[in-house]
């Protein structure tokens, strides 16, 4: 098992993917959280909020984002990485089909696809999870909506801290920046649905 993990780590190092995965993770987790915010606040503001509907819509959206993330990243990464491998083969005047580079390419593609699939799906599922409690009558619908919005803001703030750490900037300010995006989106949704309603 440890040998297996070491091998994967070696392949990922050869493929040079850490920065790409960080980007994928932040961008897609951000997408997932904001999508969940849209579903919850849109339903709440239009008065059509029902735990069963929110959970159903949230799971559906998460699955769709997961599938879209997996297939999109798989295809895009495959194309880019195959192109780079062919360039390298031309420079080396040999095929790299039976080398660590070919195995690293496959590992990197699958890893990117998994990150791209799981990060939006997990962040949106986490965001709508209070509605599962509401569905079982443990909390009220309004409490679930409030908890859900707070969860989204917490996810955005944590993502902000993470990007702040990556850029070696002030982590708290970076977290606040992400939070402002979330609050602005929430305001926009409420204004728009209020206007429409």
């Amino acid at each position, binding site marked *: 098992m440890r040998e297996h993990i070491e091998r994967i780590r070696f392949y990922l190092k050869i493929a040079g993917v850490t920065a790409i995965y960080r980007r994928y993770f932040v961008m897609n987790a951000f997408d997932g959280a904001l999508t969940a915010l849209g579903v919850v606040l849109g339903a709440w503001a239009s008065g059509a909020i029902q735990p069963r509907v929110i959970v159903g819509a949230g799971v559906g959206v998460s699955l769709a984002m997961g599938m879209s993330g997996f297939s999109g990243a798989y295809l895009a990464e495959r194309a880019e990485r195959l192109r780079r491998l062919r360039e*390298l083969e031309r*420079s080396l005047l040999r095929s790299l089909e039976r080398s*660590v580079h070919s195995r690293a390419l496959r590992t990197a593609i699958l890893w990117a696809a998994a990150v791209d699939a799981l990060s939006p799906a997990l962040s949106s599922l986490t965001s709508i999870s209070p509605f599962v409690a509401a569905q079982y009558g443990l909390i009220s619908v309004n409490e679930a909506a409030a908890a859900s919005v707070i969860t989204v803001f917490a996810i955005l703030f944590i993502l902000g801290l993470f990007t702040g750490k990556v850029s070696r900037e002030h982590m708290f300010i970076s977290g606040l920046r992400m939070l402002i995006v979330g609050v602005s989106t929430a305001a926009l949704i409420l204004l728009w649905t209020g206007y429409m309603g």
Partner: protein
Amino acid sequence: MDQDPVVKKVVLDVLKPHQPQIPELASRIAACQGVERVGISLAEIDQNTESIKISIEGSDVKIDVVRKCIEDLGATIHSIDEVEVVKKTSQK
């Protein structure tokens, strides 16, 4: 009493991609069968590749095994620049 020649040292001119990096490459080659000591020096660096000299020493270096190891790491051997062979005395 037979005297079988064995390779004690070989110096290779190799073209490699930037990854794996030289220390990693050296450790991986050192893990190959029959290799006891590996030295690598960088000769030239290009946009996609690096030209390096690999000096490999061992009690019985098998060039084919080393070639396989190096090629598995994505590198390609341009030439064998130096070889040191000794006669190993074995009783048959």
